[in-house]
């Protein structure tokens, strides 16, 4: 900033949205506004930059759990082994990202700033639906890049203080916003993770049960999807797990996640396909 004074636009009353303000004042800082050269991008742009893979989220009685594996891929290459793809969006919500990692991380930063900015200007936090809609608007702004292979598909979860429950929202590349019940998963391994959660998830799970269920689901995703990283025992790299309850969100300590992962792996040593679900409701396993 060359002029040390506050620009006139800063002093004008108006929007409490940071991204709207940015669109007016510094549009080049918005992730979706950057021009990607036409032509040879197409499906290839996706192979030029790292991709985040599987994110799962599940609700329990007192809140919601979100977890993500640690792998980023670039075509057939593992770009990073310990990438973090689950971030706190604010005190009561978290966002997990699948898709082009670079753009996704930038979008998360913008989304975090957006929520904090609103809170500071208005003196109150956005409603859970308000937050979900703002994220939808940011994704919609990225549609141009998504068409060229640089798509971002986040999963958003949080604790709704108005309804006293954990809630999960999924998105598509056009900014479509869909509320999910109980559990959901996005990314390349999401089909396997969702199948796993279908059999493991129960509405009466408590926090630790819910954490175990999502770690199991990520294991199943890594088992069948080459782009999803499983627990890395030699390097002790385990999923990032974010738990959000009425007291706010917190990231589980690595040691706690490691303990759950070790338990899951111990079980898989006996039965590699994981826990067995009963064939009919109420039947014996």
């Amino acid at each position: 900033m060359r002029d040390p004074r506050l620009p006139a636009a800063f002093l004008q009353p108006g929007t409490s949205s940071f991204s709207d303000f940015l669109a007016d004042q510094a549009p080049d800082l918005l992730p979706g506004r950057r021009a990607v050269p036409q032509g040879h991008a197409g499906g290839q742009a996706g192979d030029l930059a790292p991709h985040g893979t599987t994110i799962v989220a599940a609700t329990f009685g007192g809140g919601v759990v979100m977890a993500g594996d640690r792998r980023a891929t670039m075509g057939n290459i593992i770009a990073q082994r310990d990438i973090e793809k689950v971030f706190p969006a604010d005190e009561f919500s978290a966002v997990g990202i699948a898709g082009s990692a670079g753009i996704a991380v930038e979008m998360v930063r913008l989304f975090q700033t957006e929520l904090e900015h609103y809170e500071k200007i208005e003196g109150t936090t956005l409603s859970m639906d308000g937050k979900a809609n703002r994220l939808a608007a940011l994704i919609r702004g990225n549609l141009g890049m998504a068409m060229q292979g640089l798509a971002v598909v986040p999963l958003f979860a949080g604790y709704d203080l108005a309804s006293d429950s954990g809630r999960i929202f999924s998105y598509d590349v056009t900014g479509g916003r869909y509320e999910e019940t109980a559990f959901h998963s996005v990314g390349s391994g999401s089909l396997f993770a969702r199948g796993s959660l279908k059999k493991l998830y129960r509405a009466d799970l408590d926090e630790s049960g819910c954490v175990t269920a999502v770690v199991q689901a990520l294991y199943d995703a890594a088992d069948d999807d080459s782009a999803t990283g499983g627990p890395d025992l030699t390097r002790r790299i385990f999923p990032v797990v974010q738990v959000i309850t009425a007291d706010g969100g917190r990231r589980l300590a690595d040691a706690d996640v490691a303990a759950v992962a070790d338990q899951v792996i111990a079980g898989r040593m006996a039965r590699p396909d994981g826990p067995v679900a009963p064939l009919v409701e109420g039947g014996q396993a």
Partner: protein
Amino acid sequence: MSMPFYVSPEQLMKDRADFARKGIGRGRSVVAVQHADGVLFATENPSQALHKVSEIYDRIAFAAVGRYNEFENLRIAGVRLADMRGYAYDRRDVTGRGLANAYAQTLGTIFSSGGEKPYEVELFVAEIGDTAADDQLYRLTYDGQVADEHGFAVMGGAADVVGGYLEERYTEGASLADAVRLAVAALGHTDADDRVIPATDLEVAVLDRTRSQPRKFTRLRAARLDELLGERGPAEHAPADAAGGPGADGSDGSDEPPIAPV
């Protein structure tokens, strides 16, 4: 046809300064006190919605006296500046010094430009560091002057009386509870007597280094204040015709438009 009168620049500036000072003097004081865990702000403000103390960024807070609409504008501009810088660079790159400088340049330009009326505001910008020695407290006046304050600072109406009280009793490295007690006692102090301000009429906020979250700003609500202040004797609301005037900042009930409904 009216005759253009010659007014010397000295007189012009003096008139503008008197005008701004008069507006600022009508409001109640805001106190900033540095203590072991950070910086505390306190003021008597019965409104729960119209704040005089606010968060700007992770480690930066803002407090103001004077006209609400004017300092609210400056506050929003500060939040925008901080968020934009933090987004474009990094959260660590947003500094209190940078913000204080932007405010000073803005207030200075408005004060000395002939077209606009000067802002009737005074501001505190505080930033906490990793240790108490790194804490910074800036005080900005209506004409764009910046002062680096140490220990404590007071602005607004009755600033001399409240400042004098603090001067006698302030100690470095006090605990949060001691700092709150001192600040609140100072606000209730007048030359005539000492008043116990009800906790519900206080607006108190701190930049607290000990918070685990990156955002260190937190408001101390009435219940927490009562806990920190302990037993103080019977509380008394501000008299309606006190030196501070009936309204909050800048509204003295005469020819001024109403600003804060309190």
